[in-house]
C-alpha cells in the first residue's frame, strides 16, 4: 500500500514537473533538509525499491514531454556507480542524499550500484577502457581520475561549477583539476589520524596520547611490557601500511619534501626518506605491530581495534563514523596527530590526506550536461550527510545544524583547522603504474625484505 502511494505521488510529481515547470534551476534546491539525517534512511530504502516504477511511468510520459518543451523538465535516467556498499560507512549519506535528490528532481531517475572497493577499481578501469562508463561514477582524485582525464573520457565540469563556486571552495577542487579545468566533484576530505584506545593507555599510565615521539615510543614500550599490542595494521592491504609509513616519513622529512617526491618533482633518492623508512622498520622490529595483522584485512583489524586488541590504530578519519556509532567503544577512543620525529624538518600541522573521494561525469554520457548539474547537487548532499555522520570533513562549505556531529570528527576538525600543509595519500597522488610500484615497495618494507636505502634506490630507479 505504502509503496503504491509513493509511486503515485512520484508519477504525479513527475507529470507536474513535465507540464508546468519551465525551469528547474539547478541551484533551486539549496535548502535541502538539513537535520533529517536519521529520518531519511527509511525513505531512502523505499526510494531504491521504487526505481522500476518511475522508470515505467517515465516511458509513458515521454511523448508529451517532447511536445511540451525540450528543457530541464524532461524525464531522464542517470546511472551511477560508487563504492558505498552496505558495509561502507558512507552508505547512509548516499542513501539520504539520493532520497533528497529524488524528491527535488522527480524527473530524474537515478539507478545506482555500489561495488566493493578493490573490485571497483578493476571494474571502472575496464569500463573506461571500453567506453562503458555510467553517467556518474565515483573516483579517487589526482592520478586515478587523471588517467581517465588524459584519455579524454571525463566530462569537463567548468560550466556547471560556476553555479556552485560560492559553496565549494576552489582549493577543494585542486586534486581534480587538470590543465586548469575541473573534472571532479569532491565529497569529503580525510586525513590519517592516530586513533588510540584510551582505556588501554590508562592501564600503562597515560591519560593523553603522547605528544612527542620519545614519549610515544616509551608509551609503546610500556604497552608491550603490559602485554598490550601497540599497533594494528592490515598487512593484506598495503594501503593500510602506507597510513603508518607515510606519517613516519612526513614527520621526519617534512611535508614539502614528501609532496615533491609524490608529485614527481623530486627524486625518491633522498637519504632522509631512507632514514625514516629505517625508523619505521625499527617500530616493526621492536614488535610494536600485531604479527597476526599481516594476515588480516583492514576490516578485521579495525574490528580488533574496536574490540580492544590494540592500543593504536593509524587510519583514515572516515573511521570516526564507525567508532562513534559503537556505543561501547565511542567513549574509549581518541584521535590525534602523529608526533614529530625530526623537529628540524617537520612540525605539527603537517598532515597526510586531502579531498580524495570524488564524483565525476563520463564524457560519453548522452546527458552529460544535466548529469554534471545533478552531480554537483548530489555531491553537496552526500558531503553534507557524510559530515553529519562523521565520515569525514566536508569539502563543501558546511551548512545547517552541525552541532550533533560526533566528538571524534570534531577533534579532527580542530586538527585540520590548525593544519599547515597536506600531503595527499601516496597511492592516490601517483599514477596507477607508479602507485603499484610504490605499494610493492611498501609491502617489502613492512615485511623487512628491503631496508631504507634499498627502498629509496629501488623507487628512484623504478619510477620514471
Amino acid at each position, binding site marked *: 500500500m505504502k509503496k503504491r502511494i509513493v509511486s503515485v505521488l512520484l508519477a504525479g510529481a513527475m507529470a507536474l514537473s513535465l507540464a508546468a515547470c519551465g525551469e528547474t534551476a539547478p541551484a533551486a534546491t539549496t535548502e535541502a533538509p538539513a537535520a533529517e539525517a536519521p529520518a531519511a534512511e527509511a525513505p531512502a530504502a523505499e526510494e531504491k525499491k521504487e526505481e522500476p516504477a518511475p522508470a515505467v511511468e517515465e516511458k509513458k510520459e515521454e511523448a508529451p514531454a517532447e511536445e511540451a518543451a525540450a528543457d530541464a523538465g524532461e524525464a531522464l535516467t542517470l546511472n551511477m556507480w560508487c563504492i558505498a556498499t552496505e558495509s561502507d560507512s558512507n552508505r547512509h549519506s548516499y542513501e539520504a542524499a539520493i532520497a533528497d535528490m529524488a524528491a527535488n528532481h522527480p524527473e530524474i531517475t537515478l539507478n545506482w550500484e555500489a561495488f566493493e572497493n578493490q573490485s571497483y*577499481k*578493476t571494474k571502472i*578501469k*575496464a569500463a*573506461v*577502457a571500453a567506453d562503458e562508463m555510467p553517467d556518474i561514477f565515483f573516483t579517487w582524485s589526482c592520478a586515478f581520475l587523471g*588517467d*581517465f582525464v*588524459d*584519455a579524454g*573520457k571525463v566530462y569537463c565540469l567548468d560550466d556547471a561549477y560556476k553555479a556552485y563556486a560560492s559553496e565549494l571552495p576552489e582549493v577543494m577542487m585542486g586534486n581534480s583539476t587538470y590543465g586548469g579545468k575541473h573534472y571532479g566533484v569532491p565529497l569529503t576530505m580525510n586525513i590519517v589520524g592516530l586513533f588510540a584506545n584510551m582505556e588501554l593507555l590508562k592501564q600503562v599510565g597515560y591519560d593523553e596520547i603522547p605528544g612527542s615521539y620519545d614519549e610515544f615510543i616509551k608509551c609503546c614500550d610500556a604497552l608491550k611490557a603490559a602485554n598490550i599490542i601497540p599497533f594494528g595494521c592490515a*598487512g*593484506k592491504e598495503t594501503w593500510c601500511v602506507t597510513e603508518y609509513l607515510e606519517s613516519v616519513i612526513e614527520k621526519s622529512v617534512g611535508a614539502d619534501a614528501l609532496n615533491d617526491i609524490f608529485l614527481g618533482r623530486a627524486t625518491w633518492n633522498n637519504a632522509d626518506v631512507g632514514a625514516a623508512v629505517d625508523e619505521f622498520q625499527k617500530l616493526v622490529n621492536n614488535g610494536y605491530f600485531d*604479527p*597476526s595483522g*599481516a*594476515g*588480516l584485512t583492514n576490516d578485521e583489524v579495525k574490528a*580488533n581495534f574496536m574490540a580492544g586488541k590494540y592500543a593504536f590504530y593509524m587510519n583514515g578519519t572516515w573511521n570516526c563514523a564507525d567508532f562513534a556509532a559503537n556505543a561501547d567503544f565511542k567513549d574509549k577512543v581518541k584521535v590525534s596527530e602523529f608526533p614529530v620525529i625530526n623537529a628540524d624538518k617537520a612540525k605539527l600541522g603537517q598532515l597526510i590526506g586531502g579531498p580524495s573521494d570524488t564524483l565525476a561525469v563520463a564524457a560519453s554520457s548522452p546527458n552529460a550536461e544535466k548529469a554534471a548539474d545533478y552531480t554537483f547537487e548530489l555531491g553537496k548532499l552526500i558531503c553534507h550527510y557524510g559530515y553529519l555522520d562523521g565520515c569525514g570533513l566536508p569539502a563543501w562549505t558546511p551548512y545547517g545544524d552541525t552541532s550533533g556531529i560526533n566528538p571524534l570528527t570534531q577533534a579532527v576538525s580542530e586538527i585540520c583547522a590548525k593544519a599547515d600543509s597536506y600531503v595527499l595519500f601516496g597511492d592516490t597522488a601517483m*599514477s*596507477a*603504474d607508479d*602507485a*603499484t*610500484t610504490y605499494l*610493492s*615497495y611498501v*609491502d*617489502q618494507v*613492512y*615485511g623487512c*625484505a*628491503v631496508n631504507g636505502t634499498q627502498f629509496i634506490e*629501488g623507487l628512484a630507479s*623504478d619510477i620514471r
Partner: protein
Amino acid sequence: MAEQVKVNKPSKQRRKRDLILGINIFLFLLPALFLFVSILIAPIVVSVYRSFQDWNGMSEGVFIGLKNYRKLFSNSVTLNFVVALKNSLMLAFFSVFVQLPMALGLALVLGRKPKGERFYLTVFFMPVLISTVVIGQLWLKIYNPDYGLLNSFLKLINLETWTHIWVSDPKTALGSIIVPTIWQYVGYHMLLMYAGVKGVSPDLREAAMLDGATAGQVDRYVVIPIIKPIIRVSVIFAVTGSLKAYDLVYILTGGGPQKLTEVPSTLLQEQLFLANKYGMGSAISVMLIILCFACSLLITAAFREKDK
C-alpha cells in the same frame, strides 16, 4: 572411418556436390567455430599484438617490441614473474607428485571393492562440487591467526609453538595455498582414475592372481599400465590447472606477503586492472598460453617416450 561420402574423379556434378557438402560441413561447424574463434582465438591474436605495445587500455598503444617480455624476466620488485612462475611450478609439482599419487592410491583401493565403496566415492568427490570461492573463504576461517580452527587446535594439544599466521608468514603462505588446492581436486582425479581402474577386465586380474600376484602387484603391473592414458590426461590437467591457478590464491593470500605467493594469473590481473598496463598484461597472458601449451606437449611426449 566414415566412408559414406567419397570424393572421386572431379566431374561437374561431383564438384557441385562437393560444394554443397562443403557448405554443410561449414554449417555444422559454424556455431562451434563462432564461439571458439570469437572468444578464444581472436582475443589471443589481439593479446599477442598488444603484448608488443605499451598500452594503458585507454589511449593509443605505443609499439615497444619485446620490452614487455624482457621486463617479465628481469627480476623487479613490482613484477616478479620469475617468482610467480616458480610458485605455479611448485603447485604443479605438488599436484603431480602428491595429489595424483593420492588420487591414484584411492582409485586403486576403491577398485578393490572395499565395503562402502559407493559412500567413499561420493564423499571424496564432494569438494570438487563446492565453489572455489566458498573453499577459499572456508579455509580463511581455518587459517585465521587468532580464532582459526588450525591454531586453536594446535593450542589445544599444547603445540603453541607450531601456530603460525598461516597465510602471511613467508614460510607457510605458499603451503597454505597448496593444501586446499590439492584437497579440493584429489576427488576429481580419483574419479577419473577410478573409471580407468573399473575398466580393467576382471579376467585380466584373475589371470594375474592365478599366476600368484598379490593385489599390489596386480595394481602395479596390470592396472596402472592399462590406465596410463587416463593418468596422462590427469597429469596434463593438473599441470595446466596449476599454471592457471587464480581464485584460491586471490582469496587466501592475494599474492602476499611481499608478493611471495603471486602466480601468473594474479600478476595478470594486477597489471591489467591495478597498474593499467594492458600491454604487459597481454604479454603475461601470451606467456601463460605458451607455457600451458608447451607443458601439454612435453607431458604427452614424456608418456610416449616411456611407452617405448
